[in-house]
């Protein structure tokens, strides 16, 4: 069953540019969103001698 679905997936991937584009967008977007908290840097504390 898994082989059948993977074959269908490969056929669709090769056949449709629209499918390829959307799969790439979804995967890249998901990775971006997962990495988003790590990208957000915490603000540095002010220097000690600041008045």
């Amino acid at each position: 069953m898994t082989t059948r679905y993977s074959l269908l997936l490969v056929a669709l991937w090769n056949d449709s540019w629209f499918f390829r584009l959307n799969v790439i967008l979804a995967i890249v977007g998901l990775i971006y969103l997962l990495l988003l908290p790590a990208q957000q840097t915490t603000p540095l504390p002010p220097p000690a001698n600041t008045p």
Partner: protein
Amino acid sequence: MSHWATQLVDPRLSQLLQIVSLTLLAWLGFKLLGRVHWLLAVVVVLLAASNAIAVWLLRHEPQVLAGIYSKPFAKRYVDWVCRCTGDQPPVAHSSNKPGGELVLHSDRDFGIAAYRAKQIVRGHDQVIDNLFSRIHEAVTLRQRRSDKGSQPPFASLLLVGGDGVGKRYLSRVLAKLLFRSGGVLVFECDRVTPEVLIGSRGTPGELLEAVRRQPFQVVIFDKIDAASAELIQTLSSIVSRGTYRSPNSSRPISFANTIIVMTTTKAASALGSLAQKSLTEGTWHREAMELVVSETLLDHSLLNAVSAVFLCQQTSDLVKAEIIAMLMKKESKAHGVSLSRVDPEIIVSQVLQIDDATGFGLVPHRIKLLLRKPLVAATQHNHKLLSLRVRWS
């Protein structure tokens, strides 16, 4: 150099390059969106995921998508996905059942539709009865068919008859009575080329694009005897197989839910003599085909795929008068005026102007000219009733 060139055109490498460049572009795009607001990136991810799922369903589970497609809110979205992929919108099995795109189902439905068609298209009662009975047979067989794969069109009909007898009008009425959308496509075979119908690389064909968008249609090929050899070959492929692959897409367009009507004026007199004989349906079909082949030089492969040949004969003078009166009434009604009385002399003069060469082709135009001045006068004086009388001088 040649080694690198070969590597560059290698499809695997080009696909890999495409994926890498798309990934980089997507990453940059998400970075930009993230700067505005991270929720925008979430929306794009959800949209992309739903697009990918929709394409999967369209190709592998069309019945699931057909269920969603029948909902008004999803129709536009699925249409948009289909336009992007070059696929036909999914056709549910229930489209051929009551409530679907096909309006006529039972014996009663077809009986009423034939009666209505006879009220609208005068003088072709026999043809209308046979036409509706043939389509009824096709619909019944389609409903019972277990294999839902590639199927030929509902019916491929050849209408033979002189100019202006109402072949095209009859086909239009058939479309309105049979399909909810009432879609009709007309192609003049002496003017169109196969490229116009099926398209070329980068340009969608008019026929394939129209049938892709709306699979339930009556497609009329007028003056089929004037079609080029390439056009005949294209048509016979569509009629016999029921599908055609566009040069722009790997997906075939299905004609399974269309009715193909081909018309010709040639062979009308020969078929007229044949119609005088009392022949069985099978003998009529075989002999009519032979006559059409000898008179029009049409290809056997196309005619073999035609399911029925109908002869639309010139109507009697009484029927012509009836049609003229109907057209006059319709024209007056379009301007908000009721036609209360028309002198018979006016109708007779119109009947006498109808010749065999043009038939009813010019009649609507002549009626418009005839009614122009009386309608202008009625509109100026705000009259709701109009009476046309002969002014004897």
